């Protein structure tokens, strides 16, 4: 599950760059760019806390041991 969420988070960041590049190439309109960037932003903040905070917790527990 964690790996799955991580993959989504990574894909979201890559997606943001790809959408911007497509806008540069003229394949995506201004309106579509804004919607995609907002959607990617929401997805990032929904998915990233799951694995990023877990990773921090795991690191801390490793150190505590």
């Amino acid at each position, binding site marked *: 599950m964690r790996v799955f969420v991580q993959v989504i988070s990574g894909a979201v960041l890559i997606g943001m760059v790809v959408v911007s590049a497509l806008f540069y190439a003229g394949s995506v309109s201004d309106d579509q760019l804004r919607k995609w960037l907002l959607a990617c932003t929401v997805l990032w903040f929904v998915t*990233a806390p799951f694995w990023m905070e877990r990773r921090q*917790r795991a690191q801390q527990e490793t150190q505590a041991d």
Partner: protein
Amino acid sequence: MCWFRSCGSKLVVTAAGHVSAHSMSDSVPHEPVNEYEHERVPDSALLGLKSFVGQYAGEHVAGTELMIGPLFVASGVSAFDLVFGLLIGNLLAVLSWTFMTAPIATRARFTLYHQLEQVCGRKLVVLYDAANGVMFTLLAGAMITVSATALGVGFKFRMPGLNDLLPNSVGWVIAVLVVGGLFTVVAAYGYKALARFANVAAPWMVVMFLAFGIVALSRFKTSSGVNIASVGDLWNLAKDVIWKGGDAFPGRVKFTFWHVMFFAWFCNMAWHIGMADLTVLRYARKSWYGLASAAGMYLGHFMAWICAAMLYALQLYEVNLTPAELKALADAGLLESFKSHEFLLTASKINELIQAGVWQGPPAVLPGPMAFHACGMAGLLLVVIAGWTTANPTLYRAGLAFQAIAPGSSRFRATICTGLVASLTAVFPLVTMRLLDFVALWGMILMPMGAIIFADFWLLRRFGMAPYRAAIYGLTWNWAAAMAWFVTVIVCTALVLSGGVPIFFVGLPGWFIATALYVGLSRLGRRRPVIAVKRQNAY
């Protein structure tokens, strides 16, 4: 700029204002976290290179980047001066972390404050704390200003211009006070939660800055009609359209290659040459981990600055005048010239507009509208989140600095008071619109203490004196250090005010002055140690 946001790594700014090797995100089960504030960091707590790469990359992509990049454009910088000035200046900053800060950090393994206390004495450290606290407060104010510009997009109130010192609308004042109040309450009550959020936001912020750059470039390409088929075409667009150079905008200092280079090198002077990052790098296994700062420099102080600069240049290029402004332009006989798109990118043309009464001053640097224009709501969210996640630890640290001066006061009250003062300063756009000068001033004020630490650590033994003079002589106020600090700041200030030396340049001579003064004054004030000299560190 570096403003203390960790980035999912094990290095985190902790409740004591120092950097801990543990995460604060889940502090409850394992508190209290040992921050090694008054002892050497043990070998078991040392961290690998990856932790520092994450730390620096997260810290240096912050809300301030949204102001600094555009202010370069307002300073009339050319493409060559900007790109190569940043490349070399950032390299010098990385080398400063690697060869000045890290070697002391990894040998002594003390926090900056512990090191200062050993060298300068407790009372002088309190003064340092006060200076730092004031600077942090003003910086937090600047961050509040940046975030408040996002509200202007929705509420359409009048926002400050580039050269404004005072607020120019009631809406602006209300927006700043609301944003500042919110930031303050969160910093006082929910610092840890927002610090966790900042960790999560950091990678997204880096990508958003990149998106700004790509989108702005695309708009430039479309507006100018330039076809970009090669790197040469891209460079031509950069130098002929985006950063044309020429005079600075009215009221600004002209930036050359040297200005950009020294600014990039010294904007974090308090952290590398000023030694504030002793606290971070004391956890490094090897001193060359200072090279990890390159992640922050080239993501934040190169990519993010350039992308933010492009947003402002785009605003200048695609400027939309109101019907009244167009009429004034036509009355002044400048309308045809304006339509040619050659018009608004140079200072002389802006001066013509001002003289014709079309504008009151140069176009404002307003991150909210700029980001919204480029990327819509996601851009606006970046402005708010970048400002907030940067202001949060800055307010917290300012509160801690003042709390250290009055140890009996509560951290909560100190943060609330600091936040209120920061909010009031944010109402006045002076610091934000003069952020380049403010950052240089910060470095100039705190840099001498780094030079003193450097001289104490490396040079005193060579001149037959013992290091850690305050500890050895039982001093609470090391006069040699105090005089070296004060005289350096006075000389540097005099050079700026009367000698015509730009503030961005004085850090370099200032460092040599502080070092020489500290060594010289320490030699003059030699006396018998009150405690036996012992090797307190591993060098």
